[in-house]
């Protein structure tokens, strides 16, 4: 039995500071002083707290505010019984700073790799039926904005069958919206905007653009993007605030550029096997690239932020895929093309929508 004198003590019940002595027992100690709960207490219930200027401070598990401070120093005889200081957090304290750092780094690398790569091999294994259910629920009848002029949808379906015979079939519609664009929504729902049809000079051009969107569907890019987005949000959740958000947007854009290139490759292959000339699609990108040239120097910086590869390089890719000696035929005939171009114009019921959202 050893007595240690010169401690101060808070019992966690009132703010009074008690002067106490500590007397060791079998596997613990008791406190001796006026009006204090003498114990006994177990060494193993002690927790190291931050130092007071007077000396090291210990708390007691499950007793909020209970403190003892060795104001006259810790005798060597009981030093081994006392818990060590808590510094970085339990895992790091146990492993040591450098060992923990290396281990954390390895775990982070594996985790980051999983987040980046998992969507690539997980997405193709998600049943298309699930994606289709979700997509159809989202798209519905597109708010009645799909055009249905006589013969138009039939011509469009014929065009699609030429370039894609995959199962399950994609669902392509023209929406009465002025934007020059097309989108692949979840579940193989592809929407062409009226603006694109108006801009198009030939059905082959539409075939190229549609081939690109169908490429997104067949390569499961939509699900992939969703999974990647969710994964990155978790991964970068550690960095609070806006920094994580910007980094997330940059990484996501870089991956979506990869998907765009893959979709272009798909379109080129499909055009080739259907014997449709890639010239018109190339011409379409040439027109787009003329618009980008107006932006001048800014185009280079655009490479960082735009999700599509710059039009010029896309034009080159399509142009180069043309094979000498192949007999190309238009994807649909002149009558079908006329019906398709006027699919919205010939449908008086469909409302035009150039609202804020499109």
């Amino acid at each position, binding site marked *: 039995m050893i007595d240690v004198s010169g401690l101060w003590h808070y019992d*966690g*019940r009132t703010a*009074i500071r008690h002067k106490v002595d500590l007397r060791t027992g079998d596997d613990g100690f008791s406190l001796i002083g006026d009006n204090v709960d003498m114990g006994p207490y177990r060494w193993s219930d002690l927790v190291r707290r931050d130092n007071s200027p007077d000396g090291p401070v210990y708390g007691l598990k499950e007793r909020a505010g209970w403190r003892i401070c060795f104001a006259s120093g810790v005798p060597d005889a009981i030093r081994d019984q006392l818990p060590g200081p808590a*510094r970085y*957090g339990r895992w790091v304290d146990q492993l040591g700073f450098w060992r923990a750092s290396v281990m954390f780094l390895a775990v982070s690398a594996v985790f980051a790799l999983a987040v980046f790569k998992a969507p690539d091999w997980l997405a193709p294994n998600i049943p298309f039926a699930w994606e289709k259910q979700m997509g159809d629920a989202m798209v519905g009848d*597109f708010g009645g904005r799909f055009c249905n002029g006589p013969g138009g949808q039939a011509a469009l379906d014929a065009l699609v069958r030429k370039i894609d015979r995959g199962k399950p079939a994609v669902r392509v519609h023209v929406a009465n919206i002025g934007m020059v664009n097309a989108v692949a929504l979840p579940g193989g729902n592809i929407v062409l905007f009226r603006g694109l049809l108006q801009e198009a000079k030939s059905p082959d051009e539409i075939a190229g653009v549609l081939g690109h969107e169908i490429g997104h569907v067949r390569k499961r890019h939509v699900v992939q993007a969703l999974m990647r987005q969710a994964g990155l949000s978790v991964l*970068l959740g550690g960095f*609070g605030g806006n920094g994580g958000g910007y980094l997330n947007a940059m990484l996501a854009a870089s991956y979506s550029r990869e998907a765009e290139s893959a979709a272009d490759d798909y379109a080129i292959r499909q055009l080739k096997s259907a014997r449709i000339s890639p010239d018109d699609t190339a011409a379409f990108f040439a027109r787009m690239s003329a618009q980008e040239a107006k932006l001048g120097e800014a*185009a280079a910086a655009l490479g960082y932020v735009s999700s599509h590869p710059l039009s010029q390089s896309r034009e080159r890719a399509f142009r180069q895929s043309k094979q000498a000696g192949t007999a190309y035929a238009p994807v649909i005939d002149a009558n079908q093309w006329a019906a398709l171009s006027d699919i919205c114009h010939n449908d008086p019921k469909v409302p035009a929508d150039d609202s804020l959202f499109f």
Partner: protein
Amino acid sequence: MGIGTQDETAFSFDGDWQELAPILFTNLMLSIVTLGFYRFWGITRERRYLWSKTRFIDDRLEWTGTGKELFLGFLLVIAILFVPLFLLQFVAQALILRGHTAFAGMLFLSLYLVFFYVAGLAIFRGLRYRLSRTHWHGIRGGSDDPGFGYGWSYTWKTIVGSFVLGLLIPWSMTSLWSERWNRMSFGPHNFESSPEWGGLMRRFLLCYLAPVVALIVAIAIVVAGAASGGSSGGMAGGALAVVLVLGSIYIVLPIMALAYYVAFFREMIGTLSLSTLNFHFSARTKDWLVLMLGNIGLYVLVFALALAVASMLGVATLPKDPQALAHPPIATLAIIGLIVAIPLGLVGGFVRYRNWHFFIRHLEAGGEIDLASLTQSSTPEPRQGEGLLDALDMGGF
């Protein structure tokens, strides 16, 4: 014991940034290798240091919060806030695709209101958590109120505060502060807060009117310049007007806003009491200005350094070929990320240190404390930390 005598203030801070630096550097290192997740433990280490260097009368404060609590709070927020938001985004998209833009708009509006509610809840629970983890003489603070009611108050008072062109903002800020603090306690005693907002209106109107006055003066100068004839007179007048308007927006307005906030803070702390203790905050606008300029200076300095390092490494220059940019390697992105993250991570800690030092240096208390009747708080101890506050990026004291 009696406190607040002439020669000795009740609060003092004897921290040292050189002691803090190793804590901040190791925090940064561990945060990087854990993709940022260590920051919950890092913040805890930082607070333990700041609290342990803060003395009130005869003993220092003690921070008893843990990194795990903050982390759990963060996970909770992800689960109850961000997962539903992620899913709702599909509902919003579906509404837009199906042409129900009005419904989508209503959805966004209600989300906006929910965000207000959650922000209020976060402020309340953040304060409650911090008090419950602050010990002095073995006694802690807290609140019996979980803050759900305060979330509603925050929503409607903030909205009403913006009525009448924002003239009621001092009222909403004042009333929310006192509502919050009147629910807080330390030991067995409730905090009492009874601030007046009328006295704040003069400074608020000054900062409110500054741009208007500048605009009127600017227009007057242009008109006078044009009237005095000659295009050169008009040009000079126009230039002067532009300088005046920009100056008032970027220099005068922030200073006026600061002056208002200083008065607000002084009134809030000055009307706060705990049992027989009365608090007082002595900082004037000049002191706050020095604090703010110092903080801004720190950020500028460190960013300049980071940029210099980045340009030496060659990552700050853009390659000529745009195609090379179309697929920036992950390594480049990571370096850019680190160049932003390292300075932000480091400076943040020093800025919080300066703010805390400033706060304690100017905080005073007077009155009597009876240690025997300062008994342990019976308020519930929140099991997780200030996850909401953290997620919504709201700090401050």
